[in-house]
C-alpha cells in the first residue's frame, strides 16, 4: 500500500513539475508586437502631442515602414489648441503643428477596397508620468507588427485581396485632430472604398480585451467575436452600461470608453470601424476611475511604462497585446472578409433617426401636447362635476356696498 502511495506521489510531483515547466516556458515567449511596443516606448518615452520629441517618434515609425519597403508619407497638419494654466480662468489658444505617418501596402487586384489600421503615437507626457507604453505604445507596437507580417507575406506572394493602409496618428490625445485630418484629406470615393477601420488604443492593462464598433450590435463586432472564438482569444463585447458622459467629440453628443479614440472620427463619417482596447468601461462611471478591478490605475501615472506594466500585469498584458494582434491578423486573413464587410455596410442597423437632432425634441413636444390635452380634459371634467355658483361674491347688482355713501 505504501509503495503505491509513494508511486502516486512521485507521479503527481512529476506532473505538477512538468506543468510548471510549461508555464515557465510560456512566459519567455514574448510576441513581436509586444517587443516592438517596448522598443518604441523605450526609444521615444517623451512624445507629447505636437512636441519635437513627438516628431522624432513619428520619424521612428516612418523609418520602420521605409525599412520594410512600405510606401509611406508624412501628413503634416496645423490646428488651434486651447492651452492654459487654469482651464476656467485663463484660456489661451495656441497654433500647433503635428503630423501623421501613413504606410500603404497595395494589393495586386484591381480594387480600391482598403482596410485602414490605425493607432495614435503621441502620449500625455508630463513630469511624473510614464513612457506611455499602455497609452498608446501598445497600439503602435501591434500596428507595426501587423505591417511587418503583412508586408513579409505580400513579398512572399500571399497577397490580400484589398489594400492595407497603416496610420500612426498625431494629436490622438488632443481631440483626435490627427485622425480628423487624415479623413478630411480623403475624397468621397476613397471614403466609400474603406471596408473597415481597425483602431488600436490602450491595450495592455485592464481586466479584459474589448471590441467596440457602434452604439448597437453590428456585423463587424460579431465577425471579430467569432474570430476570437476560433482563435482562442478572450474578447468581450462592450458592456451594456457603457458609462456614458457628455462630450462633443462624437457627433452623437456624448462619449464613453468606446467613443474616446480615433475610431470616433471614422464613425462620424459613417465608416465601418472596430476599436480594440483593454481598460474597464467602468472607468468612466464609478466615483474613482478603475481601469482594473484588481490592479491599480496605470493611465497617466508613472506606472505607464513597459517595466511597470510587466510587473503589475505580467503575462496578462502580453496576452492582450498578442490577442489583439491575432484577432486583426486572422480577421483580415479569413476568406470572405471583404464581402462580409461590404454586406455589413448595407445591413447594419441604421439608428441615425434616434440620434437625429429633431427626434427627441419632437417626441418631447408631442408628449407635452398630450399632457396639455389631459389637463384640459381634467379641468373640463371638474367644471362639469362642480359648476361655478352664480354671483357669490356679493359685490354685484343693487346690493353693492355704498362705501362712498358718507360723501354723497
Amino acid at each position: 500500500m505504501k509503495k503505491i502511495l509513494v508511486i502516486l506521489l512521485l507521479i503527481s510531483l512529476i506532473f505538477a513539475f512538468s506543468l510548471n515547466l510549461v508555464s515557465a516556458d510560456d512566459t519567455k515567449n514574448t510576441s513581436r508586437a509586444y517587443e516592438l511596443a517596448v522598443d518604441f516606448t523605450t526609444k521615444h518615452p517623451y512624445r507629447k502631442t505636437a512636441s519635437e520629441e513627438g516628431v522624432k517618434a513619428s520619424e521612428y515609425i516612418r523609418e520602420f515602414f521605409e525599412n520594410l519597403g512600405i510606401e509611406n508619407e508624412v501628413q503634416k497638419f496645423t490646428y488651434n489648441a486651447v492651452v492654459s494654466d487654469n482651464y476656467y480662468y485663463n484660456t489661451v489658444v495656441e497654433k500647433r503643428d503635428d503630423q501623421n505617418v501613413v504606410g500603404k501596402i497595395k494589393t495586386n487586384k484591381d480594387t480600391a477596397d482598403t482596410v485602414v489600421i490605425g493607432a495614435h503615437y503621441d502620449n500625455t507626457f508630463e513630469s511624473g508620468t510614464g513612457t506611455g507604453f499602455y497609452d498608446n505604445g501598445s497600439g503602435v507596437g501591434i500596428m507595426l507588427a501587423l505591417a511587418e507580417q503583412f508586408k513579409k507575406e505580400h513579398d512572399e506572394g500571399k497577397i490580400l485581396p484589398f489594400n492595407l493602409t497603416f496610420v500612426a496618428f498625431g494629436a490622438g490625445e488632443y481631440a483626435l485632430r490627427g485622425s480628423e485630418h487624415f479623413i478630411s484629406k480623403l475624397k468621397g470615393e476613397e471614403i466609400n472604398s474603406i471596408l473597415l477601420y481597425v483602431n488600436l488604443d490602450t491595450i495592455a492593462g485592464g481586466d479584459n480585451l474589448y471590441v467596440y464598433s457602434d452604439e448597437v450590435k453590428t456585423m463587424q463586432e460579431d465577425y471579430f467575436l467569432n474570430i476570437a472564438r476560433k482563435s482562442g482569444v478572450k474578447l468581450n463585447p462592450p458592456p451594456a452600461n457603457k458609462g456614458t458622459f457628455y462630450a462633443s467629440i462624437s457627433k452623437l453628443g456624448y462619449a464613453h470608453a468606446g467613443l474616446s479614440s480615433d475610431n470616433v472620427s471614422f464613425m462620424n463619417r459613417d465608416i465601418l470601424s472596430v476599436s480594440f482596447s483593454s481598460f474597464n468601461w467602468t472607468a468612466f462611471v464609478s466615483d474613482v476611475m478603475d481601469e482594473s478591478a484588481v490592479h491599480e490605475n496605470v493611465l497617466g501615472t508613472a506606472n505607464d511604462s513597459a517595466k511597470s506594466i510587466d510587473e503589475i500585469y505580467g503575462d496578462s498584458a502580453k496576452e492582450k497585446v498578442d490577442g489583439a494582434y491575432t484577432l486583426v491578423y486572422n480577421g483580415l486573413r479569413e476568406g470572405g472578409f471583404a464581402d462580409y464587410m461590404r454586406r455589413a455596410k448595407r445591413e447594419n442597423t441604421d439608428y441615425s433617426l434616434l440620434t437625429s437632432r429633431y427626434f427627441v425634441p419632437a417626441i418631447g413636444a408631442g408628449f407635452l401636447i398630450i399632457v396639455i390635452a389631459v389637463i384640459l380634459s381634467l379641468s373640463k371634467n371638474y367644471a362639469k362635476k362642480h359648476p361655478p355658483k352664480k354671483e357669490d361674491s356679493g359685490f354685484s347688482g343693487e346690493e353693492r356696498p355704498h362705501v362712498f355713501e358718507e360723501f354723497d
Partner: protein
Amino acid sequence: MQNFSFFVRPEPNVVYKDKLHKVNVWIMRAILLVAFAFSDFYSVNVTIMETALSGALVNFRPEFLYPTVHILSGALSVLFFEIIGSLYYSLIRPLCPPVQLTKKGFMSYLRFTYVLISLLGGCIKLIYLFSDLYFYVFNNLIDVVVTTIGLIVLYAYINKHYVPDTIKSKFIKLAFIPYLTVQFVRVLGLLL
C-alpha cells in the same frame, strides 16, 4: 384706527388627511438626496470628463473630488428643489387663494412625490444595464415623462382634498402653466 384686516389673507384652515407632514423635514430631504443620486447615477462627473477629453487638461483627473461631486450635486439639487418648490407655491397661491394648503404642507407633498418620481425614473434607467442600446439622450425624456405623470397625480390629489369645488377646474390649469412653460422652453432649447 382703520381696520385693514380685510386686506390680510386668512390662513387656510388646514386639515391634513394623512401623516405625511409629521415626518421630520430633514429626514425627507435626506431621502430626497438619495433618490436624486439614484436617478442621476449616469450623469455625474460629466463635466470633469469632458475637460479631460477636450484636451485642455489631459492629465486632469481629480479622482479625490468625485465623491464630493456626487454629494455636492445631490445636495445642490435638493437646495434648488426647495427654492423652486417654494417659489412655485408663492406663484400659485395668490392665483388660487382658497386652496386650503400651507407652504409646509405643499412642500411635504412635493418632496414625497419627487422621491417617488426619482426612484421610478432611476428604476426605468436601470434597463440600460441589461440593454444592448445606450442613448444617453433618452434619459431626459424619461425624466420629463415620469415627472409630468407624478405631478399630474400630485395636483389631482391636492385638487381632490384641498381645493374648494368651485375652483377645482381653474386650479388644475393654473398649477401646470409654470411647469409646462419650463418644459416647452427645454424642448425649444434642444431644437436651437
